[in-house]
Each structure stands twice: as structure tokens, then as C-alpha cells.
């Protein structure tokens, strides 16, 4: 074989290798075409009934903490003023029993959640505690001009891999893209009504934004779980992002679903 022929052969092998590598990692090698609906494109199945297992923050979640207890929350002084003024009787009188059941806090409460597809682009999350409903809208843009609500307006996407702000300039044969097989659900929630991060009046304001990442995992004993990492940003009452992660175990059916109304106490 001539040197030229060998070089061409190697070039073909190289191109083949690159294309195989790229296609093995997902989107870069995917054939062009219309994007699949979010339901069909789901990398993991989050539907079903799940129960929160309270192995963390037990005495701030399973019982209403004592007045003035704001441990672990990065509160600004303005937030402590609200904590110290908490009065559940006033909230009840004002019809605000659901202040601790808003999107920034609902998944920290002891609850079961039921997740289902409302349509091909909307994932619905219901809680039996407080009987709340959240809608995760894929492809949605800015929230409509409606009054703020406990659950706000949530925009969802299947988490994308890390991206450079512009075109990738690296030489493909020297650097391949990694992290392309995302499997997380990312939800951003705004347009929230002011409420409580905890039932004892630790506040968040209407300026709050919540970013959540839902990750599914299956354990060696066969149990299925999702863990949701919740990042709450509130420039009014928090001095930085408030980050928690909550763990939910899948249940075989909905037989333990037990709807209960909001309680201020």
C-alpha cells in the first residue's frame, strides 16, 4: 500500500472514530429533525407516587419548629424580624394557612407527591400535604401577567449539558464534548406569593426565584428515588442562595395518598 493510500485509510479511520464517539454521546451526532415533545424526550421517568423520607432537618420538618428557630437558613436581619413576629393565629385569621406550602418550601414538608403528565409539555406535581398542585411547563417563556401565587409559574427543561456561550472552537480530534447525556429535570419558578420557608415563619418574599433539579436514582435493593436539589434566591430576606436537597422514595401505588388541608400551625 502506498503512503498516500495509507494516509487516506487512516484519515477515514479517524473520521469514523470521531463520528462514533460523537454519536455515542448524544445530540452532536443526532440526525436533524423536529425536536421530540418533552414527554417523549424524557430521559428518566418521574411519574408515579413518591413519599418524602425525613432523614434530614427532622425537627424543622416533622414538627413545627419553635418560634424564633431559624437554624441553617442564611437569613438577613430583615428576615429575623419576620421570624420573631410570627403569629399563626394572625395567618389563620387572614386566610393565609398555606404560607408554608409554596413552591420554595412544599417539597421540604412531609408529604407524598404524585407526578403525571398533564399533556406532552406539562408535568404536574401534586402534594397530599396542603393539596397543592404545581405545573412544570416545558418551553414556556416568561410568566403571564397574573397575580403571584403559592406555586408561582414554573418553566421546565431537561437539563442541558454545559455549553460555551458561543461555538465550540476546539479541534474535534483533540477534544470531545463530555457531559452530553443529561438526565435531570430543571425547573425555574417565579411569580411567587410571599410565604414561609418553614412553618414557623421563616420568610421568603415575592422577589424569590426557585431553581430545582430533579435526579432519579435506583438503589441496589431495587428502591427507586428522586432527589430534588432546591436553590432559593431571595434578595429581600436571604443573604445568599438557600440550598437544600430532599429525597423521595417511590411507592408501589397511591394507597397511602392522604390529602390534608394547609395548616398554619
Amino acid at each position: 500500500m502506498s503512503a498516500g493510500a495509507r494516509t487516506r485509510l487512516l484519515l477515514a479511520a479517524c473520521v469514523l472514530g470521531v463520528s462514533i464517539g460523537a454519536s455515542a454521546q448524544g445530540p452532536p451526532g443526532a440526525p436533524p429533525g423536529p425536536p421530540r415533545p418533552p414527554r417523549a424526550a424524557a430521559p428518566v421517568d418521574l411519574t408515579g407516587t413518591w413519599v418524602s423520607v425525613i432523614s434530614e432537618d427532622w425537627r424543622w420538618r416533622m414538627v413545627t419548629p419553635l418560634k424564633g428557630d431559624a437554624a441553617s437558613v442564611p437569613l438577613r436581619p430583615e428576615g429575623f424580624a419576620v421570624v420573631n413576629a410570627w403569629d399563626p393565629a394572625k395567618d389563620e385569621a387572614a386566610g393565609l394557612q398555606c404560607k408554608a406550602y409554596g413552591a420554595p418550601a412544599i417539597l421540604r414538608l412531609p408529604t407524598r407527591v404524585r407526578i403525571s403528565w398533564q399533556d406532552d409539555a406539562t408535568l404536574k406535581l401534586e402534594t397530599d400535604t396542603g393539596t397543592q398542585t404545581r405545573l412544570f411547563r416545558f418551553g414556556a417563556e416568561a410568566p403571564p401577567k397574573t397575580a403571584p401565587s403559592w406555586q408561582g409559574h414554573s418553566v421546565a427543561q431537561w437539563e442541558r449539558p454545559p455549553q460555551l456561550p458561543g461555538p465550540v472552537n476546539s479541534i474535534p480530534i483533540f477534544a470531545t464534548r463530555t457531559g452530553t447525556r443529561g438526565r435531570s429535570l430543571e425547573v425555574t419558578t417565579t411569580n411567587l406569593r410571599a410565604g414561609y420557608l418553614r412553618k414557623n415563619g421563616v420568610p421568603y418574599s415575592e422577589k424569590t426565584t426557585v431553581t430545582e433539579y430533579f435526579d432519579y436514582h435506583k438503589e441496589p435493593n431495587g428502591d427507586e428515588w428522586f432527589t430534588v436539589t432546591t436553590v432559593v434566591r431571595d434578595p429581600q430576606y436571604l443573604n445568599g442562595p438557600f440550598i437544600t436537597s430532599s429525597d423521595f422514595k417511590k411507592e408501589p401505588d397511591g394507597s397511602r395518598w392522604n390529602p390534608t388541608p394547609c395548616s398554619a400551625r
Partner: protein
Amino acid sequence: MESDAVFRALTRRPRFDVPRGPRGRRQSCRGPMVKQGLGYVLVVAALVGAPAPLAAQVDFTGQWAPVYHEDNPERIPGPELGDYTGLPINDAARLQADSWDADRISVVSAYQCRPHSSDYGMRGLGNLRVWADLDANQQLLAFRTYMPAWGSERTIWMDGRPHPPEYAEHTFQGFSTGAWDGNMLTVTTTHLKTNYFRRNGVPSSDRRTVTEHWTKHGDVLTVVTVVADPVFLTEPLVRSQNWLLDPGQALPPFTCEYAPEVPGAQTVPNHLPGANPYLTEFADWYGLSLEAARGGAETMYPEYRQRMGAPHAAPPDRCQRYCVCAGFGCDVNPPRPAPAARPAPVAAPPARPR
């Protein structure tokens, strides 16, 4: 024959006898040498471009600052005696935990400088550095982690090696292997020494297996820790903790000196069964039922709130301990109101003569 030619081309060792000039300097590669060099580059490129099952899907390397927005009083100042809430423990674990006397650390040198195991360390004092070991083919061989708390250094093997046989040495960090599931790294750890689930004496056994799930979302690292312990747990303990990427973080070495803090002590400090007088304090301080404070799997599910029972004692009107905890600023005493009037300032002492 064509495939043989490809094989020979891919496996032939390239010649690098670069022609040299009269003074021994390399001449520029042109003409035939360009093709040969290009062939070598293409061979390498083909290898680089080929599927790489061991390659990292996500880069976890870097400096990570722990986020203590969960269980801060337990993780920073330390847990209260008798607080077993949220732990799916059995009676054997309770019996051992009830006997715990923190003076043990002062008296028994084996408890001084005792490292946190890899599972508890991720929950405890967790400033973290992660780096990657790559082999000669630039494939991920292992992630390594370092935590200054007790100088804990750990290896997570990513090269597919099996775990050693059961009789192999157990260590505080154990033997860890990792595997990718998309952008999630799942780590399995065995061969751990006995340690604790909570550092108020709740024990973990050397028969436990730990499964971790690492995910990275932007600058947030989340690690779910699932511990199965046939000796002390009735169901797996699942917890998750978070870090923030902190490129400016610099981790110091950890130094710990053994020192007899109670000279002449002849016994291991302990409480005999039923004789620990401090086990109700936690429930009383926070207005909890005593049964809830004793932990157990049934206390971890929403329906337990319906049958939790009354507090052991009348709860205080408001928080009295660890009410304001953020980061390392966690004070056991509640914030006191500002005094009505400041006392007269004390005159500064004269400067000491040099």
C-alpha cells in the same frame, strides 16, 4: 487483506528518526516526513475520537465549599445527646448510643484524632477538593477527594476494577468504585471500619455498604448517600448534601495530637443501660415526644405525625438553643436583646513599655 493493512497501519510504530542537520539540529519536517508524521497524528486522533467508556461525563474536579443549610446545629457545633431523629436505627444502635459519654474522647486515645468515615465525612465537616487521575491514554483512572477534617483522603476507582474480597482490610475511607449513568456518578463503597451515623454515639458497623450518587448542576454539587447497614439499620439511610464550587478555596493539612486530657483515668467513660440521665434533654429543649427523639424508620414518614404523641415536657415558648445558625456562626445561646443603656466605657490601659 485490506483489514490487515489497516491493522498494520494502526499498529506500526512510527519512525521518528528526524533528519538532522550538520550540527545535529533537527531539520524541519517536509516532504515524506510530513506524511509519516501525519499518519502518527491520525492514529492518535482515531484513538481519541473513538468511544471512551471510561471518560468522564461530568467534571467533578475542583474546590468545593460545603453548604450547611440542613442540620447545621448537628453538623457544625455537633449533635445533642439523645438526638436520634431521622435515623432508621434499631435497638442495638440505641443501646450503644445511649451508653455514649463524650468524655470518652478525652480519655481514650483511640477516639482522639479518629477520622470520619467516607460516608459520615460527606455529611459532617465537608470542605472538599476533588481531582482526577488520568492514565497514559488520558482515560479517567480515579477521582480522588481530600477533606481537611481528619485529613481524609479517598480514592474512587473508575477503571472497572472489582472490589477486594470481604476479608481484605477495612479502613475509614473504605474501597470505592464509580460508574457513570449519564451525568450521574454512582459510587459504591465497601470495606469500611465501624464509625458513626451521628457523632453523638449512634454507631455504624463495618458491614455497611454505601452507595453515592454525585450530580453537578451549575456550581452546585449534590451527593446522595445511601447506607445499608445490616447491623444497626432497619432500612437504608438516605441523605443528600450540597457543595458550592469555590475556586478560591485553599485547604490546609490536618494536624491532630493525642493528649491525655484526664490523667490517671482508669475507666472508659460510659453510661450503663438505663442509667444515662441526659437522654431526655434533647426532647425537652425542642418540645418533642421522647419516642420521636429515639428515631427509627417509622418516624421518618409523613403519617408518623399523626401518632407522634405529646411532647415529653411542656415546650418552651420560643427557641432557646442554636436558633441562629448559618455557616460556622452557630451560637448555642439565643440572641439577647440589646441593653437599654451602655455602661460607661472603661479607660484603655496605658501602653506597655517596650
